[in-house]
């Protein structure tokens, strides 16, 4: 096995195990921490595909920003004081069936896809920041700008919703 393969298997197994950890943990804080491990192992996969920018942005945005907010909320809500209400058996069965259906669909779709047997191209430079920037600002300028406007409007929307209501004088 080459180093890349060892790393690939290590990261894949880590990702799957910690994903199981996210679902199986009773304490929501542990779930969040497992989710961070998942993000890390996926970032590792990106690095193996030579997409370093994607890897680090994944860490900064998901593990560094979004998950911090998750932890914030969970820590302040103090969910531990309210023990989990045991769920209905039928609900659990339905959840398992639905999850399995999704798995079957995903596996079926990927098994039939044409680039299934295309081996991982090591040494491509597509994921490097230089080429990414060129593509983004030459071929995809308009979608890029539109999505940034979308983000801005989402941000303003969040501020408007989060703002305190002014005391209306009756």
């Amino acid at each position: 096995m080459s180093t890349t393969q060892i790393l690939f298997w290590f990261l894949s197994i880590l990702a799957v195990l910690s994903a199981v950890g996210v679902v199986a943990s009773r304490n929501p804080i542990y779930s969040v921490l497992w989710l961070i491990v998942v993000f890390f192992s996926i970032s590792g996969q990106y690095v193996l595909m030579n997409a370093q920018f994607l890897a680090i942005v994944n860490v900064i945005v998901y593990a560094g920003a979004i998950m911090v907010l998750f932890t914030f909320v969970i820590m302040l809500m103090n969910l531990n004081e309210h023990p989990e209400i045991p769920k209905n058996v039928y609900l659990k069965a339905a959840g398992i069936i639905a999850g399995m259906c999704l798995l079957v669909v995903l596996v079926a779709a990927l098994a039939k896809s044409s680039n299934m047997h295309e081996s991982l191209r090591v040494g491509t430079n597509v994921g490097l920041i230089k080429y990414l920037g060129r593509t983004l600002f030459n071929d995809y300028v308009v979608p890029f700008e539109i999505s940034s406007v979308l983000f801005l409007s989402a941000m303003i929307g969040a501020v408007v919703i989060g703002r305190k209501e002014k005391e209306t004088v009756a």
Partner: protein
Amino acid sequence: MHLLAIDWSLLTEKLVLIVVVVLISLVVAMYSTYAERKVAAIIQDRRGPNRAGPFGILQPLADGLKLFFKEEIVPKFSSKFLFILGPGIAMLTAIMIGAVIPWGNKVHLFGRDISLQITDVNIGILYVFGIVSLGVYGIMIGGWASNNKYSLLGSMRAASQIISYELAMGISLIALLMITGTLSMKTMVGQQMDHVWNIFKQPLGFLIFLVCAFAETNRTPFDLSEAENELIGGYHSEYSSMKLGFYLFAEYVNMFLSSAIMVTLFFGGYDIPFVNDATFIHTIGTNWMAVFQGAVFFIKIVLFLFLFMWVRWTIPRFRYDQLMNLGWKVLLPLALFNMLATGSLVLLHQNHWHF
């Protein structure tokens, strides 16, 4: 047959380099605690630690021993695993930053050219950002696992402070990236060796970065997370022994490495000032050059460390609303202005100063 196709010499080389960098970070952090007390003493017209060894030079060792021998206390209702994980993460994220800093150009040993940088990834500075944004977890997990309201408040303060200042820091760096056109720290140093240091091109950017670095390392005037007169000890109230030591120590490691980053980004890194490196390297050879560069880099870092301490013993702590106002209403608009101004200047320059 090779079971593991690994370049062993490369692996050893990197491993040695990692061990050396970690050791240097730790030793410097250790003596920063001593230096901090000495600087405080000088500023407050005292003598400072002077009992352990000549000039109190063994004081950090004594402090370390004290921390090791103290009783290990884990609060009864805390999550034990997370309680121990907290300081571990704080230390880990502090040390990991050292991986992308170029400590010198290269040395020639055993017939190999060894680069004095653990890895020259082409996303260098973004890597630093990724690690810094993870540094929050050490504090948050520790504060939460303590199961103490003061600790939780302290960790919330620390986390919101770090997140708020990261924004201004990132935007101030965008301006720098527009000028250098690279994310690799080694390339940045190379550019500064050939031309002027980035501080002359980005004075405002540097100022914003400096303030944000103070906030990110939780140093005074931004040490609200451990404001002892409001929060007992902040996020580490419940910690004792070496776990507390890890938190305190991580702060000094962070200080050292953020000084190193500021030197690399704005003050030419290992560039020797007023010396033409290309001719100098011919006179003394590669290895001596690396020694000189390392020494110069180190001197610059020590100056920054002194600045950190000087500010700590001069400026009082901000109030929480002042801290947030400074971050969101002063630094962020300034950083945005700096970014726009730099962007337009770069465009003008590319257009040969024609509108």
